[in-house]
């Protein structure tokens, strides 16, 4: 079995954690945001993102020449934890910070980095993730959105779906087929293109989430021209490049903490009621959280040391276990405290319950379903 490193925070890191926490507490007190569960995917607030950008807290691990701070992965981990623990609205810039930046640093051209990264860092440039299609969810390699070579670029036709926040995003990293499907090697012939979501031929159609909120979208491509300089990495290498992104996507604190504001409020409520029996039960949640955090932060440390290829299995495992945990929180909470969940409830715990219950189904689906992850982990463990 793989062993994950432990992490000891330095004094500067502890300081940094407190700095972030103070900033968020103050922002919340001043009404700059209303904390909510699942805020990293459903709490979009461009104003807040710009504020975070001004603090230097987007792309903070990136090179200074692109506007980054050259801070460590662990610093970013701490920052992310603080955002999630309080339920701050970080969704607008989330994918650009978590995925697009690292992708461009690894595979992008100098021109792409110089153009995109400084805008992302300011909290002014948002990216969507264009993977899924109506008939290609778990079987992602079967995507049929295609790009055909023309003079100076590519013409894209097809459709993406479930694109979180595409209606707010400026660009989307889009997985397309650049050569015909080959049943013997279905991962070949896929490429990643940066598509300007305001380009001619793009139509973004909202899909309402089950709460009625506008969260994700369909994105249609009708002869959309994408210039050559918007190809990420190599043509035909899209699958491998995408896999590298997944390690960043799968193991972060957002796979454990989506319902943390509810856990916190549960404990507060039990303390207010001096409910020792309830707190005993809740200590199991605390222990589970602690043990998952050990795994997640261990993977972050591996990523920091640059050994990116080895982390895909533990990263998938963290997501499978972590999302199951965050999904369980409302179910455990309601047995310890009587609640009446509604989205517009006065009582905080009722509102957090409603947000958690209604968003929980997505936790074990988005970013690859648990069933698919089980396959990945099992294969990885067996071949070790």
């Amino acid at each position, binding site marked *: 079995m793989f062993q994950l490193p432990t992490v000891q925070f330095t004094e500067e890191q502890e300081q940094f954690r407190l700095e972030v926490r103070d900033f968020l507490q103050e922002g919340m007190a001043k009404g700059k945001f209303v904390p909510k569960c699942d805020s990293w995917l459903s709490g979009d607030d461009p104003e807040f993102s710009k504020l975070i950008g001004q603090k230097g807290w987007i792309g903070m691990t990136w090179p200074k020449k692109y506007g980054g701070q050259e801070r460590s992965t662990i610093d970013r981990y701490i920052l992310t934890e603080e955002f999630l623990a309080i339920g701050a609205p970080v969704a607008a810039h989330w994918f650009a910070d978590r995925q697009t930046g690292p992708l461009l640093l690894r595979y992008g051209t100098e021109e792409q980095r110089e153009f995109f990264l400084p805008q992302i860092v300011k909290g002014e440039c948002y990216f969507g993730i264009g993977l899924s299609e109506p008939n290609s969810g778990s079987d992602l390699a079967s995507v049929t959105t295609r790009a055909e070579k023309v003079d100076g670029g590519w013409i894209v036709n097809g459709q993406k*779906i479930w694109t979180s926040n595409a209606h707010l995003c400026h660009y989307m990293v889009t997985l397309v087929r650049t050569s015909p499907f080959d049943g013997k090697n279905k991962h070949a012939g896929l490429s990643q293109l940066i598509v300007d979501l305001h380009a001619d031929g793009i139509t973004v159609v909202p899909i309402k*989430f089950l709460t009625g909120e506008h969260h994700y979208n369909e994105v249609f491509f009708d002869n959309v021209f994408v210039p050559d300089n918007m190809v990420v990495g190599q043509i035909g290498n899209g699958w491998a490049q995408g896999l590298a992104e997944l390690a960043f996507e799968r193991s972060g604190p957002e796979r454990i903490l989506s319902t943390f504001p509810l856990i916190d409020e549960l404990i507060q409520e039990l303390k207010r009621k001096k409910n020792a029996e309830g707190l005993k039960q809740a200590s199991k949640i605390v222990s589970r959280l602690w043990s998952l955090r050990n795994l997640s932060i261990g993977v972050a440390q591996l990523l920091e040391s640059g050994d990116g290829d080895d982390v895909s299995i533990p990263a998938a495992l963290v997501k499978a276990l972590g999302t199951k945990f965050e999904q369980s929180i409302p179910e455990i909470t309601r047995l310890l405290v009587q609640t009446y969940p*509604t989205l517009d409830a006065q009582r905080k715990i009722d509102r957090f319950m409603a947000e958690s219950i209604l968003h929980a189904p997505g936790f074990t689906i988005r970013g690859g379903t648990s069933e698919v992850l089980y396959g990945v982990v099992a294969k990885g463990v067996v071949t070790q």
Partner: protein
Amino acid sequence: MSEMKDMILEVVERMLKENVDKDLVDIVEQGNWLSEVWNLFENNGITIVAISEENGGAGGDLEDLLNIVRLTGKYAAPIPFTETTLANYLLEYTNLQVVSEPATYMLSANQAYTLEDGKLTGEAIHIHWARHTKRLVTLANSAEGIHLVEVDLSQAEITPGTNLASEPRDTVKFQNATVSQISNALSFDEIRTMTILETAFQLALMTGAIDKINDLTVQYTKEREQFGRPIHRFQLVQQHIVNLAGETAVALAAFNNFVDALLTNKHSSEVAYARIRFEETIQAVATISHQVHAAIGTTHEHSLHQYTRRLWSWRDEGKNTAYWTDIVATQLLENSSDSLWAYLTGTKLALKL
């Protein structure tokens, strides 16, 4: 057992199938009232099933009624059918006159309403459908004890609210309202019976929703293909299908068994067992069905959430699991000299909730 049962149920299911669809439920969830569906039920005499004929009822018994309620749960029928029929059942149970207009009820005996000289005062929250109904059948406290009263809702100040499924759950306030009917002060046993009935009606609704979720999910595993085959061919999906089928079978059998038990003894423990067991069922059914549907099931456009949101709401309404586990625990304590086996097999005769 009513002989007409199969026929009534067939008629009701056809009515629901033909008249209640996703879009209609959406419209009502936005706060509208659709009199057509209500009128359909009323005109077909479905709203007066299980009311005795001398009180103007349509005949049929509690089993028929609970099965109709189950069907309204299966179609998420957006009308106060459960509320009206339970209100009338309670009125008849306490020897009061049944009402003909849409009605609702409130059975938490937490002294929300007080009764003085025939006047009702107080405020209660989460009253089902209050803004769209005419009569409230509620418990109320007087100097003599607890009564069931029937009151005209036009005298109430109603503040609209909803549950997680966007069903009307309103705050209803009275200030010296004139009540139309008052029962005698009720015994502890009578109130307990009403609570059992309320829970039985809720379980019936839940059973219908669970049944529907199972249907939707099984159907989806046959339609949806990934990796070149329908997803029911994947073993992990098969595991979901089995667990869901198991929970659904448990729910349907629990429903049939507690209904049987209620017909012979309204104080039987079966409703308590069912309510406690449904807690697990609801969690499993909602989780599995959403997991199998994946992204499409998280959309507003898909009908799955009309059922899962209702289950997530209903489980926190009325007397919840905590209440029923208390009761079963008390029974176990009081029967400490018996073995568990004697307790389990003796419930029908020996035990009283």
